[in-house]
């Protein structure tokens, strides 16, 4: 008797694939491809149903929509949207003087228009105008918001909420990017001192948490300034923020610069371009274009990091919510604070998710 290791008879032919499967079959294949996966799907479905219903109950069915103090939101069965609605002003602009509110509104509108233009413009257009806009916009914001001349001066301590978050994000972006580019170039410099200084700065910043840098800016920096010279907490925090993110941007730019082949630089030198001209005309356009999606990711990180300002006592969006929940009118159930957190989470989620989609679009368009 012989043992066969090879099949003696043919397997039946598989039926020809159907071009368009009926919806029920497609649905079944998507949801229940294999028994364990199907069980997992069912479990997930059950969890979603329960959690979704509980959230809906909390956020809509039992929610309190109107009122101007914590008495409007008894118990913790439903969200307290009245808290969100009643405190819109400190959330959007902080303590900005009420009769000067047109100034922040102008800034918000200018930013919205600018952003619409950035997203809608064709990707073939040059990057320069976008980058220029990102530098000019914060400068304009500072001029309009602080005032001077015909406009009454408003101290930065009165800014807050979304306005402050937006200003810090844009200022950080406008200062950290050029500085990061300089640091990245410095690390590739022929000069040993520049290489060493830039490398030490970038690696030092990357080894330390942002919160520690902010703590140093808040508590230590005044000790290093000359006597008589005092700088407000807000500018110190913004500078710390910008320096920290410059180190992050430097790493991104370094990657971009490395992506430009050595042959490009040599070709530039061969046709007689000076070092600077090679950099400006050959290297930078390629390097910067390559890292644009990564720069958008840095912007997302900056937006999320602005929440840390509330820890050192700068009144950003998160700080405004926390101060709001501690104000005499709204002190009470933790549910009120939770409503603020959920609202903020949704707001940050929409902005950051939108930006990450935009970054991905840039990546695939290239």
């Amino acid at each position, binding site marked *: 008797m012989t043992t066969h290791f090879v099949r003696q008879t043919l397997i039946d032919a598989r039926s020809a694939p159907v071009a368009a499967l009926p919806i029920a079959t497609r649905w079944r294949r998507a949801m229940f491809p294999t028994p364990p996966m199907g069980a997992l799907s069912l479990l997930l479905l059950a969890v979603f149903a329960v959690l979704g219903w509980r959230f809906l109950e909390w956020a809509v069915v039992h929610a309190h929509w109107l009122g101007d103090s914590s008495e409007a939101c008894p118990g913790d069965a439903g969200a307290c949207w009245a808290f969100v609605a009643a405190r819109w002003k400190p959330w959007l602009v902080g303590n900005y003087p009420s009769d000067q509110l047109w100034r922040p509104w102008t800034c918000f509108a200018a930013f919205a228009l600018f952003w619409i233009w950035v997203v809608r413009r064709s990707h073939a257009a040059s990057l320069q105008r976008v980058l220029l806009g990102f530098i000019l916009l914060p400068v304009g914001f500072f001029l309009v918001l602080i005032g001077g001349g015909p406009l009454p001066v408003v101290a930065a301590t009165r800014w807050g909420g979304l306005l402050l978050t937006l200003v810090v994000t844009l200022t950080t972006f406008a200062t950290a990017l050029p500085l990061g580019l300089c640091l990245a170039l410095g690390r590739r410099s022929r000069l040993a001192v520049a290489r060493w200084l830039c490398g030490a700065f970038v690696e030092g910043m990357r080894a330390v*948490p942002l919160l520690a840098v902010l703590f140093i800016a808040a508590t*230590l920096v005044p000790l290093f300034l000359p006597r008589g010279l005092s700088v407000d907490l807000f500018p110190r925090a913004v500078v710390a923020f910008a320096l920290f993110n410059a180190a992050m941007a430097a790493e991104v730019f370094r990657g971009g610069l490395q992506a430009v082949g050595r042959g490009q630089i040599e070709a530039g030198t061969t046709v007689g371009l000076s070092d600077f001209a090679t950099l400006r005309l050959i290297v930078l356009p390629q390097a910067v274009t390559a890292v644009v999606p990564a720069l958008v990711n840095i912007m997302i990180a900056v937006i999320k990091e602005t929440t840390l300002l509330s820890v050192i006592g700068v009144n950003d969006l998160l700080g405004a919510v926390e101060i709001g929940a501690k104000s005499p009118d709204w002190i009470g159930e933790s549910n009120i*604070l939770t409503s603020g957190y959920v609202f903020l989470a949704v707001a940050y989620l929409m902005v950051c998710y939108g930006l990450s989609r935009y970054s991905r679009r840039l990546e695939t368009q290239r």
Partner: protein
Amino acid sequence: MSRAVFMERLPGYIGQTVMLVVVGWLVWRAVSNFQANARTLGLSAGFGFLHAQAGFEIAQSLIPFTPASPYLDAIVAATLNTLLVVVLAGVLSTLIGLCAAFGRLAPGGLVRGASSAYVEVFRNIPLLLQILFWYASVLVLLPPVGDSIQIGPALLNNRGFFLPGLQIDPTLALNRPHVEGFDVSGGIVILPELMALTLGLTIYNSTFLAEIFRAGILSVPRGQIEAAATVGLSGARAAFLIVLPQALRVALPAAGGQYQTLAKASSLAAAIGYPDIMQIVGGTVASQTSQALEAMALVVLLYAAINLSIALIVGLANRRLLAREGRQA
């Protein structure tokens, strides 16, 4: 060096000298300002305070610590607390990240959708907001000690999660936590601060790790999976034996960077009062001794050391992984 070469390099030499002079001048100005300010404010300098009595309590300490212990012990305890939360969150976020990464590549539409939604939602909400949410919105809902939730031998209430601990003295026994008046005695306690911090860090980092692992898994050539199917390995065995080892090799350097980010992000403990390096050294010690410079220097050094150790460990693991594959690092 010929004269021509020297003339060509001269601007560089001048530039470097100017750079050094400017940086040196800034440092010198800062130091002299600091000395002048410290004199007017009557601050003392140096690390002598490390051996002085700390005089404060630490809510959670892995080493014996009392208010009579020196500041040095407080710093060690705080460092251990940071390491504890980093290791906890690191392990948990790796597991969840792997699940989410495989989930996003799974054939089932619902599983894939749920994994994608998880990643996209939690990576786009600021970490601080998530930690505060778990701490101030979710964990405050836990019942008081009297109405503790009993999970097996463990107790869960607004004072923390009380696990049974092993007791060696006088006899080896299981030390079960039990309610005593308004407090719980016995067992090991996991503070609400630690729970909130671990939850926030774990969830936030797992989303980034999931993306890193997903990129690693996608980098494994399709032929490898088909070859696994050909030799008869089932889906799960192919995933663990064929795909994962190769995916890890690609993902490990990026994952190492993410673990460093996690260690730095653990400093957000200061926002909810978990006694870590930032809270104890940068907060309590700095304000009690009013030696903010020394305290912040310690904070910076400790975080840099933790970051460096993570880089070293990941580097070693990477080299071993490559060596096992028969390749040179």
